[in-house]
C-alpha cells in the first residue's frame, strides 16, 4: 500500500526552541539523521515517534503533523486573533 505523505512543522518548531538536530534526536530516541529525514518530509514517522515528538514540543499532534500541507504558524495566529 502506498502511504500518504505526512507534512510536519518539526523544522520550524525545533529552530524556535533553539534545539540542534542531535539534541532533538536524543530526546526522541532516534539517530540525528532521522530528524533530517523527518524535517524534509522524506520519512513518515510511526505513531509512537509522532507522539514522542509532540511530547517534546508540548503541542497537540494535529498542530505538528498533517496529511495536507501546513500553513505558516504566523498565518494561523492571525486567523485565531480575528
Amino acid at each position, binding site marked *: 500500500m502506498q502511504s500518504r505523505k505526512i507534512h510536519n512543522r518539526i523544522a520550524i518548531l525545533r529552530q524556535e526552541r533553539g534545539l540542534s538536530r542531535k539534541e532533538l534526536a536524543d530526546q526522541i530516541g*532516534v539517530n540525528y539523521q532521522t530528524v533530517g529525514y523527518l524535517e524534509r518530509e522524506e520519512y513518515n514517522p510511526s505513531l509512537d515517534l509522532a507522539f514522542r515528538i509532540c511530547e517534546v514540543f508540548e503541542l497537540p499532534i494535529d498542530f505538528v503533523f498533517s496529511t495536507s500541507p501546513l500553513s505558516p504558524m504566523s498565518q494561523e495566529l492571525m486567523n485565531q486573533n480575528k
Partner: protein
Amino acid sequence: MSEIKKNRLQRISITIHLISLPALVCTIMTGDQLGSWFQIVAGTFLGLWMLTFYFSFNRTGLFNFTHTKVKNLDERELEVSRRALRFAYSVFSIVAVLLLFCIALTSLKVGVLMAAAMLYLAHVLPAVYLGWTGEKR
C-alpha cells in the same frame, strides 16, 4: 562532488566489485591453465576486489550499517535495513539456485573457495542494495 556523480561512481565501484569476486574465484579454480599469468591475473582481481570493497562499503559505512544490531537502529534505519535484506534474500536465492543448476548440469566442483565466496556474497548484498540505490544511513 555532486550527488549524481557520487552515486554514479559508487555504482561503477559496486559493479567492478561484483565482477571481480567471481572472476577471482574462477581464476583460482582454473589456476593451472593460466600458467605464469596466474599470479598477475589473480593479483589484479584481488586488488580490484579489495579496493572496491574499501571505497564502496568500508569508507561509506554501509557494510557496518547492514551488520549493526537491531537494538542499535531506530525505526527509519530498521525500515532501510529491512528493504536491503529483502533485496539481498531475493538476489541470493536466485544466484544460489542458478549455481546449483550449473553444478547439476556440468562437472563443476563446489570447493571451499566457492562456498566462502557465496558466504561473502550473502553478507555484502544488503550493502550493495544501499550503495546502488543511494539510500543513506
